[in-house]
């Protein structure tokens, strides 16, 4: 039984006292609240909506910690890759590893526990979805952002839910959910092309065609994104410096680094066919294909950066008939890491979901079934292995009075490989204190799914660059799955219709991680055999934090300020990856205490748009196993500016300056030094009615 030190208790208490004080302030201020806009309303224009409780609802009254970013905001900010758009979201830690390649963590938890392997820096705890299709990587865990078959111009909006959310969204929504909702064709027919060019040989081209006839719509889009790195050297932990790839002792692996200057070469297409969503039988079908080669922080034996090759196709079908919702998807493809043939893999992933909604005057009950399977064919899993998950879920929304809403969700996951089955739950409540103030509270749990690397992995390698060393890895089928419990208190207050504040206080506990550790050193002449097996860790991470988000809109300008402060402590952190492991308690230095940002947009006239957005990340330290070393990332403020002009109704251009202050540094564990960049875009829009 681990005792919580007094200091931690007081930190937690301070945050909750702060929460009570904030709620108290709003209660006291209710007499000044502006009730002007409520009651009878003639306003029949667009209303912001989300799918956060699996139903359309006002953003204001959503029971979860949620933020959205729409296509217009992405365009205004000069964003050119999907993960970069998350810099506009409170609570998201977004780091650029190489030119145009980003990694994302919600509320942190990267490198938790620390002293582990590089693979644990993948954002394994976020669930990323595209049009409800999970794009989680079931080999390694995490999201391979370059394999998403969408360009920023394909995004209708992004919904980000912070906090454990497995009961509503499924496994792996451990620290939150990032949901990309893509565009659908609308009348009239449209033809769009967007060409972007800029620093470091950046060349991005995107096109889309939208056709609509009778009640059916088709949208076809595709893009190609090529960028060079801002440097050609790689970090070598041995010399603790950036050197030429040829000077790093990699043996045959060096052949995988075909073009050290290239950051990414990604292309994809997406076809979306759907009918009018108001029809009794509504369908929505997407077909996509992507092909990518990127350099990113992944696997890396003697340098953090590896070359990742991917090719995959996916189909996703959603059908709604009355109160039935059905979705099925398939994704298949292959993935390879340059220079590591043992990691080459073919995969097939199926997802199927069926839900039914019972509606009553004050109740909505939504039971459902879910079946997922992931099959990998590779040498590391003895030719072919399959992971399956059967899930049973029920969600209910109860509104006893006009002021109170309760959302409860239960999900039972039966994994084919994990020892236990997992029950996750979410209990969320909102109380409308008055027309302008909403209080909310919630408790929720989430767990990771099983993935190949932890469960069915079995590999024997003899790296050429290590003389007479044989390394064995053995996964554990019945290992516990990491889980998270999150408690939240929140308040949303509209000072006026164009001026609102959203505050959330959160407490999360992360348990049951697992990692590979050396179990034995034996001799098999001429080899020394290093055996690694998966170890269930008693490590727990406890996080307390607060996020504030303020938005103000004027007629021709708006401002959004947001900040998150958090403290994360680790109990039973291991020292080195050699069994038996030794443990100690510490602060999680790998999670920055502060994340903050602002976005301001100004439209001086109908043709011009000027956007500034800034992103601040506090300092943090990542510490990995001794052979990888550690890295200190000092606090960093990045300021970007984008000016956009409509030349006429068909053509618009934009100019973006990124990293205006020239803060050239590695943003993430010994990856590239990210330098200022300039990007110029030209868009051609042709609507059929023209």
């Amino acid at each position, binding site marked *: 039984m681990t005792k919580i030190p007094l200091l931690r208790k007081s930190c937690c208490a301070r945050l909750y006292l702060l929460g009570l004080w904030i709620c108290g302030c709003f209660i006291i201020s209710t007499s000044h609240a502006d009730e002007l806009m409520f009651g009878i309303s003639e306003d029949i224009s667009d209303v912001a909506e989300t799918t956060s409780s699996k139903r359309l609802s006002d953003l204001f009254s959503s029971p979860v910690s949620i933020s959205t970013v729409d296509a217009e905001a992405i365009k205004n900010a000069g964003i050119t890759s999907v993960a970069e758009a998350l810099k506009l979201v409170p609570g998201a830690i977004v780091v650029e590893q190489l030119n145009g390649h980003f990694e994302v963590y919600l509320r942190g938890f990267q490198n938790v526990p620390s002293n582990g392997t590089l693979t644990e820096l993948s954002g394994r705890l976020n669930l990323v979805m595209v049009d409800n299709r999970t794009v989680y990587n079931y080999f390694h865990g995490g999201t391979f952002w370059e394999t998403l078959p969408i360009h920023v111009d394909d995004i209708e909006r992004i919904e980000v839910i912070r906090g454990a959310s497995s009961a509503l969204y499924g496994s792996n929504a451990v620290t939150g959910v990032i949901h990309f909702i893509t565009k659908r064709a609308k009348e009239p027919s449209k033809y769009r092309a967007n060409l972007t060019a800029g620093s470091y040989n950046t060349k991005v081209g995107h096109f889309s065609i939208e056709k609509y006839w009778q009640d059916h719509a088709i949208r076809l889009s595709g893009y190609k994104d090529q960028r060079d790195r801002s440097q050609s050297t790689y970090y070598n932990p041995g010399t603790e410096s950036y050197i030429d790839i040829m000077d790093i002792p990699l043996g045959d692996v060096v052949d995988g680094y075909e073009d050290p200057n290239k950051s990414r070469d990604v292309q994809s297409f997406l076809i979306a066919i759907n009918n*009018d969503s108001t029809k009794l039988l509504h369908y929505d079908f997407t077909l996509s294909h992507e092909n990518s080669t990127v350099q990113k922080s992944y696997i890396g034996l003697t340098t953090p950066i590896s070359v990742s090759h991917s090719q995959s196709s996916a189909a996703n079908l959603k059908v709604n008939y009355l109160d039935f919702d059905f979705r099925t998807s398939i994704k298949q493809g292959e993935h390879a890491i340059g220079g590591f043939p043992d990691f080459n893999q073919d995969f097939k992933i199926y997802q199927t979901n069926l839900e039914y909604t019972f509606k009553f005057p*004050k109740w909505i009950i939504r039971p459902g079934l879910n079946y997922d399977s992931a099959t990998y064919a590779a040498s590391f899993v003895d030719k072919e292995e399959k992971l399956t998950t059967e899930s049973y879920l029920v969600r209910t929304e109860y509104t006893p009075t006009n002021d109170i809403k309760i959302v409860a969700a239960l999900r039972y996951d039966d994994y084919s490989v994990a020892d236990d089955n997992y029950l996750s739950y979410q209990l969320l409540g909102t109380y409308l204190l008055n027309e302008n103030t909403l209080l909310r509270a919630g408790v929720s749990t989430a767990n990771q799914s099983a993935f190949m690397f932890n469960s069915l992995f079995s590999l024997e390698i003899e790296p050429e660059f290590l003389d007479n060393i044989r390394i064995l890895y053995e996964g554990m089928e019945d290992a516990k799955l990491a889980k998270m419990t999150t408690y939240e208190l929140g308040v949303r207050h509209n000072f006026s*219709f164009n001026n609102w504040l959203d505050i959330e206080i959160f407490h999360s506990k992360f348990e049951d991680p697992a990692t590979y550790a050396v179990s034995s050193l034996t001799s098999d002449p001429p080899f020394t055999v290093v055996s690694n097996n998966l170890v269930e860790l008693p490590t727990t991470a406890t996080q307390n934090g607060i996020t504030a988000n303020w938005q103000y809109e004027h007629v021709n300008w708006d401002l959004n300020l947001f900040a998150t402060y958090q403290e994360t402590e680790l109990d039973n952190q291991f020292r080195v990856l050699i069994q038996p492991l030794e443990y100690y308690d510490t602060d999680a230095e790998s999670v920055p205490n502060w994340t903050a940002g602002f976005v301001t947009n100004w439209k001086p006239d109908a043709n011009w748009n000027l956007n500034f957005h800034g992103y601040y990340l506090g300092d943090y330290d990542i510490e990995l196993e001794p052979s990888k070393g550690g890295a200190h990332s000092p606090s960093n403020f990045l300021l970007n500016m984008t000016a956009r002009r409509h030349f006429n109704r068909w053509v618009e251009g934009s100019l973006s300056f990124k990293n205006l202050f020239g803060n050239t540094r590695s943003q993430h564990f010994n990856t590239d030094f990210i330098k200022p960049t300039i990007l110029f875009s030209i868009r051609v829009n042709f609507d059929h009615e023209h």
Partner: protein
Amino acid sequence: MTVLVFAKRLLPLLLMLTLSNVAGANSCDSLNVNGGQNWFPFFDRNNQDRYGILGDVVFQAAERQGIQLTLTPAVSWKRLLFDLKNGKLDIVAGALKTKKREKLFLYSNPVYYTSLNLYVRSDNQFTFEQPADLNNKRGLRIRGMSLGQEMDRYAFDHLILEETTDTSSLFKMVAAGRVDYGIFYLHSGLRELKRIRLKSKLVPLPNPIAKEPIYVAFSKTSNCQAEIQRLSQEIDRMLQDGSIERIVSSYIKPDINHDNNLVSWDYD
């Protein structure tokens, strides 16, 4: 340091932008008028010289009084009421009344009435004589649309009433059979049905579910209170001399039931 230098330059710019909007407050040479979007026949900015019933009433009253009006650009309804509250806008041609709004705005006498009716498929009509007739049916309304305090309470307790965000979806969902009825303004709804070519498929049931008087709202914080007073009095005169009735009849066909009796339900 660079951040500070930049921030010092940015802040005055933002301040200037804010002040430039405050400085745009109007004088009384011309009063600013605006109205809801897509609210035909009550307010309409799509025709050169016809502004819907409430718009025409305001423009005609102003002409009679020799008051100059400026129609300000279309903005969201919330922005419009915010501007009216702060005196940036003098007149809203067409607004409903709430207790809160009564404290903030001046109102004319009722100029006309809005009627909220049930739209159903023509092959699926039913008798609607009291709210209980809707108890086992599924309905749809526009998000944020109130049916009046009593009816809202009844709907909350007894009805399955879903919400949508736009008029077109509301009618299409009724036509597709996803719901049994949709609630919308009688006159605006008929025009929308024609636009989306569903006039032959959907009909409004004769009994409205709610009916509310509609007014011209004036800013209490406008600098032009004398002109507002004259306009309000002129509207009263137009009510008496039949001018408003003539304006109404130019927008609403006689075959549409538009009696001015308010709806009163027995909820027991």
